[in-house]
């Protein structure tokens, strides 16, 4: 029977000992090796590549006058010894433009989910059957209706057996108020969790304001914590960038919060004040590193979200990114697997910066390098030796004319020099605007790389 409702009653006396398990071990076989490659900053629940990545999947926006003008999943060969290293080896058009943006694997990594911010469609690609040639296995076209009015699925984040999707907007006013939405790995809707607002805080303590906006999501299961950040709604992210900047009313509608959630209960605990549109969230990996980083796009600041005593989370601006007065617009960050270094890409100046974040409260910039005329996403391998960059932010926010370079570039990083290994011109290849990059590998599925691929 129930005791007094206190959690865990009846078992608190149990000792967490694995001695009992010894009796279960009936034979000896090699345990899976540790992950020594793979992209950092991914869901901790996800299967990891235990050797170097074979492929980089690039979710690419279709562009008018470029190829078939449709969004597509582009596969780049990332095997350095392959004859086709650094080249596009497969493309899969989904037909039509959806404002392709982010993508994420399921926990078993058999599927890659990719979303469109405009149409709110979700494309589920099978990357397991042939990792070199993903195929479209399902399209979810009723996300808005099923979720109860959420628009603009952004982050697609693996939880055990399901996906957590962040929204950016809603179908009532196309503003920034939105929700988290859960789907099963098979693509079936589970539930919606609306973000806390001033009028409906859902039990959360509000530091300054609760805008109800969304953008990224990351979890720290060890502390039962989930964080969400906040961007802007459909009416802004689909607007021409220059027009939006000149519209004072539009500029009022950007996120200024990070929400701390009870991961297990999916309930918001507190709403932290992080002005300036905090975007990507990256939790540290260390076993006692109870903190995450995010960057605010409009104010060009690096923020530390950290636990200051049990269950007390705070947000602190810990560094400027470039010259905030010049609005470099930091857009993506990537934390090294040892929590020592953080890559930060800024869009307007096309520059990546590397910060030493070994003291998370006092980051120090140690490198600055211009990658192109515009720059967006950054993905690094688990060993930190390979860093990949892409160029596109949003269809209506990308630069115009000569500055509208569209590329994916692969670099090697030896701790001192960032050296370009390959570049793919996505306009010359008639592909479009490359956004997020995700790593694939044949070894994940008990396969070997295609024979004959090596030089």
């Amino acid at each position, binding site marked *: *029977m129930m005791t007094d409702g206190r959690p865990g009653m009846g078992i608190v006396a149990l000792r*967490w000992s694995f001695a009992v*398990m010894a009796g279960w071990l009936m034979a000896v076989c090699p345990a899976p090796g540790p992950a020594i490659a793979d992209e950092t900053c991914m869901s901790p629940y996800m299967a990891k590549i235990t050797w170097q990545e074979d492929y980089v999947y690039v979710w690419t926006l279709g562009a008018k006058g470029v190829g078939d003008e449709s969004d597509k999943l582009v596969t780049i060969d990332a095997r350095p010894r392959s004859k086709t290293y650094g080249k596009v080896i497969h493309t899969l058009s989904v037909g039509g433009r959806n404002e392709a943006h982010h993508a994420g694997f399921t926990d078993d990594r058999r599927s890659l989910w990719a979303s469109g911010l405009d149409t709110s469609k979700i494309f589920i690609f099978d990357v397991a059957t042939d990792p070199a040639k993903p195929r479209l296995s399902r399209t979810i076209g009723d996300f808005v209706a099923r979720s109860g009015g959420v628009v603009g699925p952004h982050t697609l984040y693996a939880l055990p057996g*399901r996906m957590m999707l962040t929204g950016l907007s809603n179908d009532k006013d196309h503003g920034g108020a939105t929700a988290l939405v859960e789907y*099963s790995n098979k693509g079936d809707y589970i539930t919606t969790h609306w973000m806390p607002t001033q009028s409906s805080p859902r039990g959360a303590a509000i530091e300054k304001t609760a805008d109800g906006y969304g953008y990224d999501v990351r979890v720290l299961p*060890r502390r039962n914590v989930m964080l969400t950040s906040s961007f802007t709604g459909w009416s802004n992210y689909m607007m021409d960038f220059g027009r939006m900047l000149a519209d004072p009313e539009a500029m009022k509608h950007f996120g200024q919060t990070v929400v701390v959630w009870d991961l*297990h209960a999916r309930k918001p605990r507190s709403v932290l004040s992080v002005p300036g549109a905090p975007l990507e969230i990256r939790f540290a990996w260390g076993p006692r*590193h109870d903190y995450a980083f995010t960057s605010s796009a409009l104010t060009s600041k690096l923020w530390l979200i950290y636990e200051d005593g049990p269950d007390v989370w705070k947000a602190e601006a810990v560094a400027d990114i470039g010259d905030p007065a010049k609005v470099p617009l930091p857009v993506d960050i990537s934390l090294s697997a040892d929590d020592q270094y953080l890559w930060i890409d800024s869009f307007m100046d096309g520059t990546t910066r590397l910060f030493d974040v070994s003291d998370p*409260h006092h980051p120090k910039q140690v490198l600055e390098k211009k990658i192109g005329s515009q720059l967006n996403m950054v993905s690094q391998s688990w060993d930190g030796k390979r860093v990949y960059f892409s160029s596109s932010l949003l269809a209506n926010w990308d630069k115009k004319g000569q500055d509208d370079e569209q590329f994916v570039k692969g670099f090697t990083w030896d701790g001192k020099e960032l050296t370009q290994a390959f570049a793919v011109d996505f306009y010359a290849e008639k592909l479009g605007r490359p956004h997020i990059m995700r790593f694939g590998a044949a070894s994940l599925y008990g396969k070997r790389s295609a024979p004959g691929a090596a030089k």
Partner: protein
Amino acid sequence: MSPATRRSGSRTVAGAALIVAAACAAALMLPGCPGAPPPPSVPPAPPDGLEYQPPAPGTYALPPIAPAADGAVVDDQGVSRRLFDYLDHRYVLLSFIYTHCTDSQGCPLATGVLTMVKEALTSEPELATRVRLISLSFDPDRDTPAVMRRYALHGRLDDPDSRWQARTWSFLTTRSREDLEPILEGYGQSIVREIDAQGRPTGDFSHVLKVFLIDRRRRVRNIYSTAFLHPAIAINDLKTLWLEDGRP
């Protein structure tokens, strides 16, 4: 406090308890001492092995994730049945394992946690009669009923009797890979038969550890992985389902 130097909540609470005990022993009338005013609310220490206090049963929802899947299985006595026979309108924790697994964060962890869940249920007799634990092998080539019978030895020690209907913990396998595949597919439990450098099977499996919580209406209500597979969480979730059903 620097995040790099933060100490766990359990250590903090344990340390506070030690200080109060020492003060009481010194006859100081501090909160918590006999005869002293009621102490301020102190959160209970997290369960061993967890760094946080999981949410209390019934304070959160576990929305249905997917229908449970059925399939042909065979028990450790070699008797063929359907997997649904074992769900039997109980709350079920279903764990996919293979007995040769030695990854400490894999099958041994799952089986160890089920062991502790079973121990915990001894103090929850009403709930215990409504719960079944199932360990189902995804290695039918090697995990025969006889192998599963040996594997089950520890888990069976204090079962109420030998009848399968009364058992708290069932150890199942399948007759063939063909019988296994639809079950794995139904639950979304992917496994990969590992190969060596020559492309030959090693006999090992790569798999993402998953344990499935199934309600009495045969719906998956939670899926645990290594990161939060803990008996306190599983027990609270079982109680949450029981409360949802209007526990008697």
